[in-house]
């Protein structure tokens, strides 16, 4: 009985941790790219909720989870386009615009959902699962880690794509220069606004996919405010990771575990009010900031719009 209990508990914990970690990972990787380029993308929460809503809507109408991801990415991209226009091209305050976009889209998606579905919450069919042969047969961790939707594996692969992008490509250099010393990039003949715009758009697409995953795979339905701070956690992850994609992955897994404790503790039959358990990730943020936050060094020009000729 004891052994069964542990196994079930661990299985549910790990499985849930991965499912919860993927949206955070996507948001964190996206935010990291914006921040590298010098844009503090507070609007990422809004991009995620837009991705969740339109991703769900697309998947529901088209009856395809994959089209749902495309719809989510497109919605995130559209929000990011507004952000890039206002904050990068026009140089408006990134924090104010970011908060505005987030609050606006939370309200808008809730309203649209209410108009369309009233108070019903239609469910999507369970997503297809890709079992990794052999690895999935390992007891306990096998099913927990290697029986997931393909998007899970793609997001982990994205970590390595990002590492390659930052370390080995010209575009990676441009991103870092745009964040650390935009004037230097400008006089080197690269347009700062374009570089930053590309970064913000990529953030939007990734956040949108993250939101769509949250709704379509994680929950299987859309409820208003479903992202519940996942985008903000992405910002925290990006800040703590200091430009390193691998750290975003570790951070996302850590938060994933604390999110999954909710379900796992219920499986284990330990009765703690869910409100308390839902606090865990945010407590984890505070603990992580206290422990690591002091050493986090951010790009010098983070949050500062670039204006040519201003010195």
């Amino acid at each position, binding site marked *: 009985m004891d052994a069964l209990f542990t196994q079930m508990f661990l299985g549910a914990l790990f499985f849930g941790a991965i499912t919860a970690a993927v949206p955070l990972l996507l948001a964190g990787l996206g935010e990291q790219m914006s921040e590298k380029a010098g844009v503090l993308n507070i609007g990422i929460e809004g991009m995620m909720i837009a991705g969740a809503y339109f991703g769900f809507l697309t998947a529901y109408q088209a009856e395809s989870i994959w089209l749902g991801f495309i719809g989510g990415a497109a919605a995130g991209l559209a929000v990011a386009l507004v952000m890039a226009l206002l904050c990068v091209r026009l140089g408006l305050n990134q924090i104010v615009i970011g908060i505005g976009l987030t609050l606006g889209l939370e309200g808008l998606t809730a309203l649209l959902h209410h108009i369309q579905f009233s108070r019903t919450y239609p469910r999507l069919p369970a997503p297809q699962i890709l079992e990794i042969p052999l690895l999935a047969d390992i007891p306990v961790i096998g099913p927990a880690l290697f029986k997931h939707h393909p998007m899970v594996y793609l997001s982990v692969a994205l970590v390595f794509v990002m590492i390659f992008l930052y370390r080995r*490509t010209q575009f990676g250099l441009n991103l870092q220069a745009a964040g*650390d010393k935009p004037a230097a990039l*400008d006089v080197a*003949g*690269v347009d700062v606004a374009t570089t930053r715009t590309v970064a913000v758009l990529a953030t939007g697409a990734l956040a949108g996919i993250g939101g769509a995953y949250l709704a379509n795979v994680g929950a299987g339905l859309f409820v208003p405010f479903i992202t519940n701070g996942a985008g903000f956690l992405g910002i925290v992850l990006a800040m703590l990771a200091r430009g390193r994609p691998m750290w975003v992955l570790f951070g996302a897994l850590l938060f994933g575990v604390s999110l999954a404790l909710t379900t796992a503790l219920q499986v284990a039959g330990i009765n703690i009010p869910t409100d308390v358990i839902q606090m865990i990730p945010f407590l984890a943020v505070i603990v992580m900031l206290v422990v690591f936050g002091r050493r986090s060094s951010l790009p010098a020009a983070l949050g500062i719009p670039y204006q*040519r000729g201003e010195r």
Partner: protein
Amino acid sequence: MTAGSPNSSADSSIAEPIVTLSGVTKRFPGVVANDDIDMAIRPGEVHVLLGENGAGKSTLIGLLSGLIAPDEGTIAIDGRATQIASPRHALALGIGTVFQHTMLVPTLTVAENLLLGEPWWRRPRKESLQRRIEDLSKSLGIEIDLDALAADLSLGEQQQVEILRALSRNSRVLILDESTSMLTPEGIEELGDLMRQLVKRGLAVVFITHKLKEAAAFGDRISVLKLGRKVGEISPDRFRSLDHDQLIAEFVEMMFGKRSGDPEDVVRSPHPELRDRQPLLSVSGLTLAPARGNPGLNDIAFDVRPGEILGIAGIDGNGQTQLARVLAGQQRADGGDIRFDGKPVTDWPVHARRDAGLRYLTDDRLGEGTVGSFPVSINLLLKQIGDPPFWRNGIEQTAAIDAHARDLIRQYDVRTPSEHTPIGRLSGGNIQKALLARELAEGAKAVIFNKPTYGLDLANTLATRSRIGDVAQSGKAVLLISTDLDELLALSDRIAVLSAGRIVGTVDNEPGARNAVGRLMGGLAA
């Protein structure tokens, strides 16, 4: 300058200009930064742009490098009128600029910095870069570690990287904006040699400076700017026909009207009697752990006697600001003793030190020196807010504050519309006068000046220097921290050289001190 056309056609027999400015005007709110400027930049010449702060040099650079666009007039490249739309366009036209403030990304390596601006879809090709740069740097005698982080290079090395970058992009015109302001005397010599080599290869070099000696030493053609206008030009033929002193005299004539001789060429008269006095400020074993961006302090020891000026020389960022902050009490030392006026003040807070007569004039005038939006009157009392007689029981005594302000404004010749004007609206020179007034006010016994003339124009520089001389004359001890060797030689009794947070030598200011200090500065900076 319209009468210059026959003259310029005579010049053009030498070489066709690459860049020609005609009637270029640029206005900013409230100022005409460039007023109807005509100028031709020719290959094979070092064209010196000489002018004080506010003469319009930086604006002109901005126009040439594509950062700003002219309001009137045309810029012609190879005889064809061209609008330089962006820095990228300027580079494509063959105009490379080394800006006054370094334009390298500190967190990238030298190689990565040089690769910035390549097409984004391409993989960074370090190997081919290495070959290209090696050829170039070898022929110029520059040695650069491509894998070093830009932030770890000295300012001189950063400048060399930027010059290499401009050259590796096949620039035909190289603009050097105030490039010598942060260099050691040796570094300046090296830069001069480099410029000579470049013009020999047929490049056009535009060298911006406000130092007359550098203009005379490095130039072929000189254009003098004053308050946005071009007030004179010396052609290469004429330049060669004049000797050094005649050139300096001519520059001064053009820049300042009637004065003659280099006004910065002052030598402090010796004060041998100072030796016998008891030190007023003595420091021993002062240490501070290194931190981000500064080397800390390492076993600093010196004495300053009443009436004496001790100069602290060294290249910026070798611990000068930390030393000043520790002495003023704004930062705690990790070890060592500070004695002031016979009392150990090491653990005293800022306020107590100030009350005892130890004053600090910061180099960060707008940051920590003043509150820009506060009126001049309050800024003159910024370090005494809440103290009687200007505040009683926490209530501002407006009449007393204003009277005090008017008094100091008159005494120190602060040019301000009124004592209620926000101090941030005043020019740098007048803000400095207000700070002088505040720190020298009643009870000062020793004054620490941190780069007191940094960023000021010549008139204000000279005024500030004579004020510092007066302070010492009146029997106060002066610690003068400066990166300007001429300034230190003009004012100090002794000069200590600070390098990497350590005093590497102290020199009496007598003939030969220039060389001695220069060697000390260069020996460890290289």
